[in-house]
């Protein structure tokens, strides 16, 4: 069985191989079935995780009668652990040459965590399950993105990531709807949500395990595979590579000016009474915009360059800050913020993975992607913590404007830094695809 989604507007469908220097417009887009199936794996896994995430606070506080206070603390620890695990998993994927096995371990761990929900009662049991789930997510992300990267046509790398991110976000948007539909039908039906979530997790693992090929070491292990088998020296060495080092610095700078979505939603909620009642819809709205724009943004990145789109995505975020800080307590301002925020994610999330894989030699692919994603995750955590200080010191609107000023400075600096960034090993990448 071979599934191919040909691009109708792409014209003639001739040999896609060996075109490292070709423009995206010259090579017809052909979605690799591997990417389609990885997208489906992510979609059902996101249905699984987001359905539980959406109802977990209700379950813990409303149903079990526990307090959510400590979840914030645990979540902070988890985010740090998840970031470290991510680099280790990326490294392991490169080292073993079997990214699929590492990804499968990550998806499998999250699936096992779902089984735990069927038996969990107390706070610690739930905290442990949530932690296992997040570590599983940390493990699987970079190896999976490495698989996408080697399966994509190099001319359509960002678009291929866009396809994956779209499918991913369809799952993220559908999960909460499924969960709340179950609770609408069965008011205390939390165990039913957990069972449904487990079913989707099993399907995700099954698709990955049975259908996605274990793309072999050959494809990933380039000439540099023998270098740097030590974990920490390895990630430092990226800074010496001309392209990726600059990307990590640029992504870190932008990450330091990227505050959590939660703050933006809180500003909107403070101002617009619409937002209070429909608070959960803000998240869904951003997700829907993200999934709608993921492919167009990827295409654009392949056409005009990934760096311009990555920077433009942050300009969309900057506009979000300004619009959120402006004194408009009206519906269109709220909707405008959601559209811009969705555009930010569509223009940066998959594009960053595409950029990182483009700038990394093939033998270090998963580690390179993991490094970029970890830098972004950690700097964003710092940014959110710092923004919290500002929030109380100067008030929400002023804090938002200051974050905007910082982001504007970061964007300018990044434009300067990334001006000279080039592909590290274009020939390798295209041969493997």
């Amino acid at each position, binding site marked *: *069985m071979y599934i191919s989604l040909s691009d109708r507007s792409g014209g003639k469908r001739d040999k896609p191989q060996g075109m490292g220097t070709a423009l995206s417009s010259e090579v017809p887009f052909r979605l690799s079935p*591997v990417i389609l199936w990885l997208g489906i794996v992510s979609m059902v896994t996101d249905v699984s995780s987001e359905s539980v*995430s*959406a109802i*977990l*606070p*209700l379950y813990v*506080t*409303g*149903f*079990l*009668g526990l307090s*959510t*206070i*400590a*979840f*914030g*603390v645990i*979540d902070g620890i988890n985010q740090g652990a998840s970031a470290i695990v991510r680099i280790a998993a990326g490294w392991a994927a490169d080292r073993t040459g079997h990214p699929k096995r590492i990804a499968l371990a990550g998806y499998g761990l999250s699936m096992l965590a779902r089984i735990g929900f069927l038996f969990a009662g107390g706070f*610690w049991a739930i905290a442990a399950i949530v932690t296992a789930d997040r570590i599983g997510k940390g493990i699987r992300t970079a190896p999976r993105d490495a698989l996408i990267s080697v*399966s994509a046509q190099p001319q359509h790398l960002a678009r291929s990531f866009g396809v994956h991110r779209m499918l991913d976000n369809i799952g993220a948007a559908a999960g*909460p709807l499924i969960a*709340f*539909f*179950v*609770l*609408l*039908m069965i*008011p205390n*039906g*939390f165990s*039913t949500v957990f*069972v*449904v979530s*487990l*079913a989707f997790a*099993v*399907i995700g693992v*099954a698709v990955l395990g*049975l*259908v996605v*090929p274990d*793309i*072999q070491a050959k*494809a990933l292990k380039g000439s540099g595979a023998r270098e740097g088998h030590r974990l920490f020296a390895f990630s430092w060495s990226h800074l010496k590579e001309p392209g990726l080092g600059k990307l990590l610095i640029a992504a870190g700078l932008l990450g330091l000016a990227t505050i*959590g*979505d*939660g703050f933006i*939603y809180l500003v909107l*909620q403070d101002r617009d*009474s619409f937002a*209070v*009642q429909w*608070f*959960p*819809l803000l*998240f869904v709205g951003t997700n829907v915009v993200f999934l709608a724009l993921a492919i167009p943004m990827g295409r654009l990145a392949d056409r005009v360059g990934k760096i311009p789109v990555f920077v433009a995505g942050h300009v969309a975020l900057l506009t979000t800050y300004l619009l959120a800080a402006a004194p408009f307590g009206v519906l269109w301002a709220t909707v405008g913020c959601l559209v811009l925020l969705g555009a930010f994610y569509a223009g940066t999330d998959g594009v960053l993975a595409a950029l990182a894989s483009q700038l990394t030699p093939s033998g270090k692919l998963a580690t390179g992607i993991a490094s970029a994603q970890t830098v972004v995750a950690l700097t964003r955590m710092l940014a959110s913590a710092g923004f*919290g*200080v500002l929030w*109380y010191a100067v008030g929400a609107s002023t804090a938002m404007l200051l974050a905007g000023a910082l982001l504007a400075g970061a964007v300018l600096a990044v434009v300067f830094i990334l001006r000279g960034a080039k592909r590290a090993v274009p020939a390798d990448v295209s041969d493997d695809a």
Partner: protein
Amino acid sequence: MRDRASAGAGGQKVRWGALLVVTVVVLVAAGVYAVGAYQRFEDSRTAASSVGTSAGVKLPGAPFVLFRNTASGQGYGNAATVPLSDPGGTRAISGQECDRVYGSPEQVVCLRTNRGLVTSFEAKVFDHDWEQQRAWPLPGIPSRTRISPDGSMIATTVFVTGHSYATAGFSTATEISLPGGTTGNLEDFALLVNGERLQATDRNIWGVTFAPGQADAFYATAAASGRIWLVRGSLSAKTLTAVHDNVECPSISPDGTRIAYKKNDGGALAAHWNVAVLDLASGRETVLGEKRSVDDQIEWLDDRNLLYGLPDESSDGDSNIWKLGTDAGAQPSVFIAHGWSPSVVR
């Protein structure tokens, strides 16, 4: 492409077959479970309540206890009342579903979850005949609510959780609804600790209790930078002044001399809340003889006895209301089985 090179056509067929089988089996299993759960829910919804009930078409004459009924069967999750003189007797169950309730002789405040594809939260105020007087949206999961003794002010605390444990930490939103409007979130009040105004970032306020006979003052919990205080609030000055350490969810006694609260002796992660009482005049704290962890805003039954809810360990979604004397050595006993969120209306 490469994927087909890794396995022969026969192996591929087996794999596709296996995927199909796995998918069908888990979806059918989940579907069967969901249908079974729905039928169990329908059965329990229409089944007679597991406790003696009557229809509560209006509030009884004071004194009575208002609470959330958690007995399985009809009326699960609804606000209910029992006479103060017979707490274990037949409960009058209203038609209103509430997560948290509080009452005065003339009105009831009910914090509820409106389930739907977009789940939202709401505060509703009912009069003596369970007719809705007003309602307003809440920004999160209901946690605490109180009505001032004169009935003019209503405090609500909710957990603002965002959509996910992954993207938002713990945050509360606490507001007081006044006759002419609202205070807004109490986080925006000035927080004074040892005479200095605190500029902490991770500030949370929860669990308001109104001081009897004082129109301007209230007590609440304030937390910032990992520390927790009992604060005395002033509505006119918009200030919260720390008066004692490590007091959560304060509740003032009917005579206004003592505060009952939960006190965490287990650290930030492994919270264990003891029940304690603070004498406001002397500042003396007494930890009471409840061994279990109590996560509730305590209610005074009278000037010498406390009420609070504890989840029922044998049955998810059920809970019991316990009674505990404030004298040394007093032991807890069940006051109302299958209940939650007690409010003593005098």
